């Protein structure tokens, strides 16, 4: 079998590694325009901030590819001919395949703002973006970030690390309003304040103004305010990268359309990761998943199908994590941002505003737990997932809370106060804490 994978991001690479494991004979070629070797996109910010060097964000050392017979082609695929099962590359060569995986990722989404093509205006998705940002923020005094999501806060943190005054424009009334309930968003807002980053909520970008050299000099908000700045970061989301798919008869909508086996409409052509869109997403799930984790899982799944063991994609219990300046965030299961019929949530916050736990459960007895939000606390994924899968009653979860504690040794343990708070909020379900974590971690479950 000759497998060609377009894109050496987490999706393409996970698939390649899994296919090598399943089929030692397969000939596997990874084609990517962006970089010679796979690197961690999620770590771009750490390179900018000087925590890491560019070579430190490669998940595998360079010998890995040759030793595992994974061929790397550093080029862009410009044309896909599915009839002849052939790819044309921009280095003048062609590549034939038996099976093809499109793992082309995303591109920054721009909304057609006037001035968005000025120098010093950009998104952050790939290495050229990082290079541009490094160059264009060199020695500037103020930057504006547009967007109240995960990349928005990353950009703010990046600018902040260079001592650049930072202002963030957020369309909604609170940070990441589509995902975080108000209390959690408030904690993130505290982080912005502590780090002296100004956030304008309910404020949108109307226009970007340039100087005579075509460089950004200010932004204008929908409130009509003009804010002088020398750099603008657009963190308003990403959209599937369809460039290659559109040269072929592979069906696309917003993304490359796939069934639950990650197969496109064309035989032997698959798509996975950021670029794929499920025709019929499972209930409660989104059609396009743009995460590192989901890319890895889709890459793994599609490898099985490619190797002749058709395997539907089952994401399992949702999880995600992030860090807002100094505040860590983890979420498991169903954790909606606002009131949801049939769901109740219990919320506890540490007086320092650096820690919080929210547990979502069904309003009707036996009050099965469906999700968690943790801020500034670390939860054990396997335990949370188990509770959610087993529809464990919230009273049981509260009593066993210590089992999910993944904080390092000697950290303050809040189970007692959390249970007390729960008993106050839900006196009808009295809980006695049975399982604390104890001084040392013992992995017994």
């Amino acid at each position: 079998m000759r497998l060609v994978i377009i894109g050496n991001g987490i999706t393409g690479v996970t698939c390649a590694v899994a296919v090598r494991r399943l089929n030692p004979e397969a000939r596997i070629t990874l084609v990517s325009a962006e970089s010679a070797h796979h690197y961690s996109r999620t770590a771009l910010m750490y390179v900018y901030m000087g925590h890491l060097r560019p070579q430190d964000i490669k998940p595998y050392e360079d010998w890995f590819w040759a030793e595992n017979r994974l061929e790397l082609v550093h080029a862009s695929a410009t044309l896909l001919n599915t009839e002849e099962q052939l790819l044309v590359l921009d280095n003048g060569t062609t590549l034939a395949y038996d099976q093809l995986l499109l793992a082309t990722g995303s591109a920054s989404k721009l909304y057609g703002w006037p001035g968005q093509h000025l120098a010093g205006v950009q998104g952050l998705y790939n290495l050229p973006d990082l290079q541009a940002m490094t160059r264009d923020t060199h020695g500037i005094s103020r930057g504006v970030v547009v967007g109240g999501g995960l990349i928005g806060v990353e950009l703010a943190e990046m600018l902040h690390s260079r001592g650049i005054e930072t202002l963030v424009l957020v369309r909604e009334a609170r940070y990441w309003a589509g995902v975080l309930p108000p209390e959690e968003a408030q904690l993130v807002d505290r982080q912005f304040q502590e780090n002296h980053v100004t956030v304008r909520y309910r404020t949108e970008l109307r226009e970007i103004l340039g100087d005579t050299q075509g460089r950004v000099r200010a932004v204008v908000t929908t409130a009509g305010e003009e804010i002088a700045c020398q750099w603008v970061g657009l963190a308003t989301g990403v959209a599937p990268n369809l460039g290659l798919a559109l040269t072929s008869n592979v069906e696309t909508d917003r993304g490359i359309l796939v069934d639950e086996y990650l197969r496109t409409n064309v035989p032997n052509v698959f798509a996975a990761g950021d670029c794929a869109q499920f025709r019929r997403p499972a209930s409660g799930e989104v059609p396009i998943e743009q995460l590192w984790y989901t890319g890895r899982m889709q890459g793994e799944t599609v490898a099985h199908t490619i190797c002749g063991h058709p395997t539907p994609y089952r994401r399992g219990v949702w999880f995600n994590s992030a860090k807002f300046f100094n505040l860590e965030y983890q979420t498991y299961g169903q954790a909606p941002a606002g009131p949801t019929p049939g769901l109740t949530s219990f919320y506890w916050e540490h007086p320092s505003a650096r820690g919080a736990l929210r547990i979502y459960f069904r309003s009707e007895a036996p009050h099965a737990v469906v999700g968690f939000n943790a801020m500034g606390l670390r939860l054990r994924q396997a335990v949370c997932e188990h509770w959610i899968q087993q529809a464990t009653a919230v009273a049981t979860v509260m009593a066993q809370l210590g089992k999910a504690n993944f904080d390092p040794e000697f950290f303050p343990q809040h189970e007692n106060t959390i249970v007390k708070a729960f008993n106050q909020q839900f006196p009808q379900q009295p809980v006695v804490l049975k399982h604390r974590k104890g001084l040392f971690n013992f992995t017994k479950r």
Partner: protein
Amino acid sequence: MTPTLATPPLPTSSPAEKLSLAAVAAGVLALVLALADADAARQQTWLYLALGLVSAGTLAWSWLKFGQKPAGVHQNNLWLRASTGRGAVAWVTGLVLTGFYVVLYWYSGDDGRGNFGPLNNLVHGLDDFSQWLRARPADQWFLYGTFYTLAILLMGTRALWKYRHSRYQLIRTGSVMFFQLGFAFIIPGLLQFFQQPEFYFTYFWPLKYEYLFPGTVTGLVHNGGVGMFMVFWGAVMSFLATPVLTYFYGKRWYCSWVCGCGGLAETAGDPYRQLSDKSRAAWRWEVRLIYPILGLIIAITVLLWANFALNSTLLGEAGNVGAKWYGFAIGAVFSGVIGVGFYPILGSRVWCRFGCPMAAYLGLLQKHFSRFRISTNGGQCISCGNCSNVCEMGIDVKQYAQRGAPIVRASCVGCGLCSTACPRGVLNLENGPREGRYQSSQLIHADSLRILS
């Protein structure tokens, strides 16, 4: 890959930060004056002025740099600064440190008339202090011990501010400061004050190899009750306490909580931890060096005891000659000159990783007879590499984390920095039961590819 990223202008230091750095620089200047001045009274003044200025400057700088910022991970511009990113400042620092060790080991012995070579003025500057603590004049090792302890205390305080968001780091840093000051400085001094053998209760064979050499043992035993206790202590620590403690807590109970070499690495070496080489090639060198060194010191010890038992005739001088060369090559050149002198270039644990026989011994125990491991939290790793970056032992931690595999490595000293630095809360040091210690998370399907070794 490796895009060319121009080094940005680093944020300028505040006037207060500049002032504190100026105090450190003035302290170094005062030290040079102490070395150069011919007048004995002034030498002492310069020396104390130097220690005062360096201490005050370091503390003030750490407080401004870390104590004044919100608690959290502070790594900004780590690789971009010349001092911590192998720039010119790092090379100069490395040269000065290396030079200091060379002079200390080979050119500052007492010439019999109380002259300690180039470091003479500094040694005598500490005479009063040494009289007070040990009831005897200072020598070059007392000077070294004083500097060493001061470095751990000052840079330890820096670490306390820097890592104050992590109680594990606070307690661990407090522990190395305590053991250095109490067990490696004050107690040996007091022992001498009371005319007892100078003894370090926190160093054991095979690191402090001579403690179980026949010469030392017989010397101590002849000393009487205290000496007997020291021999007993040394043997129990090496052969009983070490395996037991390592079984329960891993090698960290010693390497990053008690040991003085580890103590220096965790405090003074903290700005350099990221410099350790994470490549597979470096790991191979580690294995090639550290186990033979352990074998060597075991062989020398056995030889010496055989000689002792057979009254030194059969095997001639082999044991003694071996011990002498080992002391030179491993005890001095490797652990001192390279181990500490190269901090700013090779990272802070070069000796611990490539050379220390105690680390080799503890590592074998940790790998095969211990409950310790670093667990990874399900599928939460984003392969960002922060954990590998801060690993002073050069373990490529993310190789394990991104596969959901627990980290069970002989070299891990359990400093916990990977767990502290991980932005996704993936890593946790745990002492679980031994069964299932190697079990990977079910949430990532660990691939069986040859990623390691």
